[in-house]
């Protein structure tokens, strides 16, 4: 049906503008009623509806896997979550039960370490870009490098840190894992901090400077403070992104079946443990992997959603 109609007309818009050129009064547009014009109209509205339909369809197709993943995860995960999951460490192979308490704590240790290192550096770099480097070549270069660093695969980060720290120390360690994740956090935080600082109106800074407040104090107490909701959002997003990373931890934190809080020892992490369990052959392991995924995703979703609410309420709108 569509192909028939398509053959009859030529260009879309050019057709309709053509009849306007002659001088005579409004009588001319009557040729909209010719059969050819009508077919053309039909074709155009058909294509329009077709494409609109396709756009809606693709949205549905995109949302579907998300709902499927989430639904299946909740279904599988919730049925295997129990109290022991949060309190016990993994049981030896073949025994039922056990939990991921050490992985949850281990993830906490690595992530706090990463945040401790990554967030200050990221924010400081963002402050430089927005407050000191505006319009400078150097700032543009830093901005660009941050964007590029953001796209470096996490596995590459993993082997780089392995080569630097693990090879030197001759053992895997929680510290190495923390460094790898910290490096991944920096570019994201830098860019969001910069963007948030850009939304702070100049008038506020000028007001502070006009009162004789030194520039560093203006940056901290005025610009950063005004932009803080947005910056916190950025930090949380970077945190959420890094929380689920497995690849950089494979050769740095390495994983651990037992309790360990030492920064110089291999440490368990939730994503790592999920990976090990998911690729293992035992049903019990698979059950724990689902439960672990549910916990991990809850952690991430809750922080992302909190951030959304936070951002919508607090962030400066407009500005300049």
């Amino acid at each position: 049906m569509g192909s028939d109609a398509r053959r009859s007309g030529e260009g879309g818009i050019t057709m309709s503008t053509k009849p306007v050129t002659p001088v005579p009064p409004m009588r001319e547009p009557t040729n909209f009623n010719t059969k050819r014009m009508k077919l053309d109209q039909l074709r155009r509205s058909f294509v329009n509806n077709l494409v609109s339909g396709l756009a809606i369809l693709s949205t549905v197709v995109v949302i579907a896997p998300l709902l499927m993943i989430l639904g299946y995860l909740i279904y599988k995960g919730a049925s295997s979550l129990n109290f022991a999951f949060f309190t016990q460490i993994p049981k030896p192979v073949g025994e039922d039960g056990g939990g991921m308490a050490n992985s949850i704590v281990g993830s906490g240790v690595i992530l706090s370490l990463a945040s401790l290192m990554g967030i200050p550096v990221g924010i400081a770099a963002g402050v430089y870009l927005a407050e000191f480097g505006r319009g400078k070549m150097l700032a543009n270069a830093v901005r660009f490098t941050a964007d590029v660093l953001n796209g470096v695969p996490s596995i590459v980060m993993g082997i780089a840190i392995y080569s630097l720290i693990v090879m030197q120390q001759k053992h895997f360690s929680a510290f190495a894992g923390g460094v790898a994740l910290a490096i991944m956090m920096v570019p994201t935080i830098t860019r969001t901090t910069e963007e948030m600082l850009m939304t702070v109106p100049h008038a506020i800074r000028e007001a502070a400077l006009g009162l004789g407040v030194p520039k560093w104090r203006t940056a901290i107490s005025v610009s950063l403070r005004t932009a803080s909701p947005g910056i916190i959002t950025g930090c949380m997003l970077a945190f959420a992104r890094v929380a689920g990373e497995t690849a950089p931890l494979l050769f740095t934190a390495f994983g651990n079946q037992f309790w360990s809080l030492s920064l110089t020892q291999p440490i368990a992490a939730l994503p790592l443990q999920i990976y090990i369990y998911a690729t293992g052959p035992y049903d019990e392991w698979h059950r724990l992997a689902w439960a672990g995924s549910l916990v991990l995703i809850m952690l991430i979703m809750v922080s992302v959603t909190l951030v959304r609410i936070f951002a919508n309420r607090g962030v400066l709108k407009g500005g300049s």
Partner: protein
Amino acid sequence: MSLTQMTTNSESNPSEPRSTVRALDVPLPSAPVTTGPAMADLPPSPVRQFLSSRGSGKIADQAFAGLMLTCALSIFAIVIFIATILVLRSKLSLHAFGFKFFTSQAWDPVSGDFGALPFIYGTLATSFLALLMAVPLALGVAVFLTELCPKMLRAPISFLTELLAAIPSVVYGLWAVFVLVPMMRDSLGPFLVKTLGWTGFFEGANFGVGLLTASIILAIMILPIISSLTRDIMNAVPNSQREAVLALGATRWEMIRVGVLRNSRIGIVGAVMLGLGRALGETMAVTMVIGNHAEINKSLFAPGYTLASVIANEFSEATGDVYLSALIEIGLALFLVTIVVNTIARLLVWAVTRGAPARVA
């Protein structure tokens, strides 16, 4: 250091006549008048005294700026450090195999002969297939969100698509292993053989794991990146463009095609490139479903291997220095390729969203 600065400041301020200071600082005399004459005659304001006791001064400012600059420069340092350490550690394999490393199909840890071609093929094939699936869908979503969607639905749908980006790679992998792989083996695979078997891409045994499964999961993972960037780029097209095309009597699709897509095509290419960068480096989910077999095979059902997944799988059990440095060289190749792809992508996206608003092409 800043302490001395503080004290000199707070001492010098009161000693100076107030009026000269003001004359130097504020050339326009009309500004302070509004506050009334009483303010003007006050001794050094408590605010100023307070502030200067808190470290007003050139040195403090410079120290702060220096600290911020150092942090900013550390980003350079990180990139340079990654590059150097990868080059250093892969020296052994760089020397042993040279450029042949990227054209050789051998991957034999026992005899110490390494070539990366099967992984390059796997990476390119999965990324290309993933883009093939993801780009039309992402464009559809972006068009829907910017042009067709009722305002009420816009926020929740874009939130949902962004949630897709928040799901960790390993969870995608887990889902793929237990849902997508059986689906591929039992229903989707046989269906593809029946309908597209003649193309020759769907031959051989279908175990569910393989290039195609990896591509599908990759497509799901890069969709949110492409669609949200494309959406931003389409939003950057000024409304006057849309109105102009509509005023000529165009249908909505013609408006989108002529007014929106044509204006934002450079940015869209950039967004696709960014998605490609993500796809090239994606590790965990792909490793879990691609089958991990170093062989070049035309069939999409065949198990494969990607650059990232060979590192993830074999790095911790690599024995021997050449083996390890061959794996690090693969990492180096991945690093360089993603940097090039990302650089091009960023330049393209910036050209659209940073510069002047989109213009008539």
